[in-house]
């Protein structure tokens, strides 16, 4: 018999507290994002596939064809080619491709890039129907953005 009424009182109190919690949740805003129709900003720490960054001052990429990203890549998924051109100091980038099917997003290429020419993109809608869709021509992409 001991605790009969105290059980009743503490029990009822905790039930009311519980109802209060759900009532608060009922009137607070919904947190679900209706994905295909609305999107939220990607976190700056997000690691997408790498992309050539556009330099705002020159309007083009900053790659100096040092090939350090190619050497740093443990998956050998980056191919960089350049050539000497008349009147230009250093090499000029002619090809920069990424085989994203092999990439493990380790970020060693981004770390090794001294002129900070490559960085992670914030693209996450990357579904495709064929393997070839994931062979990216990053030089073409940066020119399209320019």
């Amino acid at each position, binding site marked *: 018999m001991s605790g*009969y009424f105290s059980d*009743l009182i503490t029990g009822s109190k905790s*039930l009311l507290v*519980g*109802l209060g*919690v*759900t*009532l608060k*949740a*009922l009137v*607070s*805003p*919904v*947190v*679900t994002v*209706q994905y295909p129709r609305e999107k939220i900003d990607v976190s700056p720490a997000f690691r997408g596939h790498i992309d050539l960054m556009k330099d705002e001052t020159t309007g083009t990429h900053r790659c100096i064809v040092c090939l350090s990203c190619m050497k740093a890549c443990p998956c050998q998924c980056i191919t960089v080619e350049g050539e000497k051109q008349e009147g230009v100091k250093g090499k000029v980038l002619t090809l920069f491709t990424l085989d994203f099917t092999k990439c493990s997003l380790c970020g060693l290429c981004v770390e090794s890039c001294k002129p900070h020419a490559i960085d992670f993109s914030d693209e996450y809608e990357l579904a495709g129907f064929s393997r070839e869709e994931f062979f990216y021509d990053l030089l073409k992409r940066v020119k399209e953005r320019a």
Partner: protein
Amino acid sequence: MDTMQMTLYDVLRMVIAFLLVITIVFINALVMGYLERKVAAKIQRRWGPMEVGLQGWLQMVLDGVKIIAKQLIVPRDADRVVFRVAPLLSFTPVVLPFLVLPFAKNLVGRDINLGLIFIIAVSSINVLSIFVAGWASNNKYSLFGAVRSVSQNIAYEIPILLSLLSVVLITHTYSMQGIVAAQGTVWFCLVQPVACLIYLVSATAETNRAPFDLPEAESELTAGYHTEYSGFGFSLFMIAEYANMFIVCAVATVLFFGGWHGPFSGEYLGVLWFLLKVFLLMLTMIWVRWTYPRVRFDQLMNLAWKYLIPFSLVNLLLTALIVKCI
């Protein structure tokens, strides 16, 4: 000739009442299914159904179409006839109480002088249908669900009856209209707060709603007594569950919350007040469902036998004493 006309009128009146009642039962299931999903979603801070129609209001209609189109599967070792009869048996008793519910002053199927007894008697057939369904499925989960439902209903029907009786002691009538008429000035939830609370708790248990949904505890018994039902058999059980909610909330409205009484409730407009009160009570039941976890079986029995029944007995005795003295 005169008596002949009376009977014809009565038959016509009952047919119309029955058609309306069945319409109400189905529409109620649609509305409540939608509300339940929406409220559950909002409590969990989701959107709920949003795709079909504005705010997803057509979702339940489409679900209904889908469920009707489904195959009716009867398990090989089930008792075929009884298995098929059980959903109908659960549907029939939830339709009948609507006939005596006073929706408004002049809007009631038939105001019989034993209305309350009629509702309680008919709606207790529901537990029989659950037991029949569980037994006929020939499946251990279904049988466990059915057995739980029976023991739960036996435990909780006593506090329901005792709490309703303490109201009847004040009104001196079992007629639903009579009980509503007695609440013209003050609602009985203020006169009988303990009985009201006991009734609401036991009614939740009686309709097998969470946190007392042990007969269909999905984490233990897959779906309890309706595990083996598909298509329309299943949906009849769901419609019956929502109609049952409507009935217990309507009884609570009539007995404790003043029925159709409210400002501007004339001959017929009281129906709006009645439905408003019923739906507020049903929303509370949904709110409770998405707040509390399921109780254990011993806790369920403890609540009924150690708390609800003694309290309702004391309340009944006190009411009797006070009524006698006044």
